């Protein structure tokens, strides 16, 4: 009897295992939604070990598996920016006709969000595109995302203005040795200058300069330089300094308002010499008015790019620290997603990604497997 039951079971097992699988489709390529969830983050991989082969990797930081959603190629100190008013993202890059030599072409490439495929491009004249280890403020929108501004460095500095709706280069505007692009809510943008001022450039509809003037000095680069990588809350740019001050600049109007600087540090923090440090050292959760800064103790000359052990959370209205997130692994760059229960994505010292809950500070997951080589900049989906 036992033998009969065993035979029956084996027969059943064989029947199940031999069930014929359906024919599958070839070719078969994934697509993405035209609008991404709040939990998706673009990890901009500069790929310092092979700079001509950089990329942007799209990661769902809330997903335990299948969190690598796709990628976009880019080349040689590229810049990246995602639109919020249309389903496109943009890469500004430089290519040579013979890969490492030959004719240089600088261009902006439009990719559609559904297929992550190129759908257009704008060639930038003059071979002037600024090449620098990835910064967010080398490629920015203006005028409700009609204009796209590309930072140039030769080492003279200027900005190429592109009508990205018509995919047409409009003009090159000089910014007098100042650097980066900090857009206002109007048709103007700021650039940081070595005399501790911000140069404000106003454009007309054709992308030409209508007015240009400098603010008064609002920081001191000799004693305490500000990082050129601010976070933005409600149109106010928060520029941390090397030694832990914050210099807010209100860019809601066409002309900026320089607000009072305040300190990230309390007395004990000063005694322990906590300082901001890392690559993408700041991020923000706009809905709750919270600023996040990557911090390290025992700061010293040269530690400003070294990364940190903690992320400090500040209420910018109260100018007060409201939380400390102790990182599981050493952090280099930080980004917070939007949404009611945001995530903190951290590029860690291994150049992999750690994900934390902002609500609890709890470490949630690790995203690695060489998804990226050097993801210096993280862009949360907006």
């Amino acid at each position: 009897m036992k033998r009969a039951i065993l035979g029956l079971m084996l027969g059943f097992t064989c029947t199940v295992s031999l069930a014929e699988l359906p024919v599958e489709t070839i070719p078969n390529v994934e697509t993405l939604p035209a609008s991404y969830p709040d939990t998706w983050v673009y990890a901009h991989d500069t790929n310092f070990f092979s700079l001509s082969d950089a990329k942007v990797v799209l990661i769902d930081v809330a997903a335990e598996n299948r969190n690598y959603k796709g990628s976009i190629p880019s080349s040689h100190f590229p810049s990246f920016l995602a639109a919020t008013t249309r389903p496109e993202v943009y890469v500004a890059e430089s290519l040579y006709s013979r890969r490492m030599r030959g004719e240089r072409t600088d261009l902006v490439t439009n990719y559609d969000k559904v297929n992550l495929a190129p759908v257009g491009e704008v060639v930038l004249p003059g071979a002037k595109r600024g090449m620098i280890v990835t910064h967010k403020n080398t490629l920015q929108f203006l005028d409700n995302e009609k204009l796209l501004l590309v930072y140039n460095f030769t080492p003279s500095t200027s900005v190429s203005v592109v009508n990205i709706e018509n995919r047409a280069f409009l003009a090159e505007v000089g910014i007098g040795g100042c650097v980066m692009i900090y857009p206002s809510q109007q048709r103007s943008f700021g650039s940081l200058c070595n005399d501790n001022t911000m140069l404000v450039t106003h454009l007309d509809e054709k992308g030409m300069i209508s007015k240009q003037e400098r603010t008064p000095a609002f920081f001191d680069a000799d004693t305490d330089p500000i990082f050129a990588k601010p976070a933005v809350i409600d149109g106010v740019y928060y520029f941390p300094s090397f030694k832990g001050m914050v210099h807010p600049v209100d860019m809601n109007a066409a002309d900026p308002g320089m607000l009072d600087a305040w300190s990230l540090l309390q007395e004990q923090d000063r005694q322990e010499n906590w300082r901001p440090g890392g690559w993408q050292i700041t991020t923000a959760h706009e809905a709750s008015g919270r600023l996040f800064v990557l911090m390290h103790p025992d700061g010293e000359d040269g530690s400003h790019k070294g990364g940190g052990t903690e992320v400090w959370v500040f209420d910018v209205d109260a100018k007060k620290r409201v939380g400390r997130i102790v990182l599981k692994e050493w952090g280099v760059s930080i980004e917070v997603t939007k949404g009611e229960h945001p995530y903190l994505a951290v590029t860690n010292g291994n150049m992999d990604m750690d994900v934390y809950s902002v609500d609890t500070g709890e470490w949630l997951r690790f995203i690695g497997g060489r998804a990226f080589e050097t993801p210096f900049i993280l862009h949360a989906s907006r």
Partner: protein
Amino acid sequence: MYWLDKITEKFSRQVANNTSRRHLLKRIGLTLAGGAAVPLLPVARAADTGGGSGYHGVAPQTSDNPAADPGDPASCDYWRYCAVDGFLCSCCGGTHVSCPPGTGMNPMTWIGTCKNPADNLNYIISYNDCCGKTSCSRCLCNNNVGDTPPYRAFSNNDINWCVGMENSTIYHCTTAIILGVATETN
């Protein structure tokens, strides 16, 4: 730069399986607790204990005049590298003062001020990049003493200082060349 220690570990772990994550973290912790005046890479400390240049598979070198110009040009803690950012040309077919064959040296660059331990003088160091081939990828080194944000460009080491090269602005590696002794005014 502490995280660069870890990148170095990441890219060298295939040849250095004996370096565990815990070991590395321990060494980083020691660095933090020690509060060294100049960030010392774990690889450099390995050199201190007789481990070679500090980069796995890279043998130590000397300058032409080791008495007056001491240290290992293939190590990230060589005194001239106090504000360097990139791959050391000494490890890439060039030297600390010359570019590898077939690349071009950009005369336009950023500078740092580093103290020579042999004479205790501060020297102005020009970090000229070598350009025209893909990243060397060997001996990545980043120190930021005196580094400034890009609005003070000529002391910023984030910029691709292959800028302006006629044939190719592709970055390959970085040298560290003495321009002179620094004075109070410069």
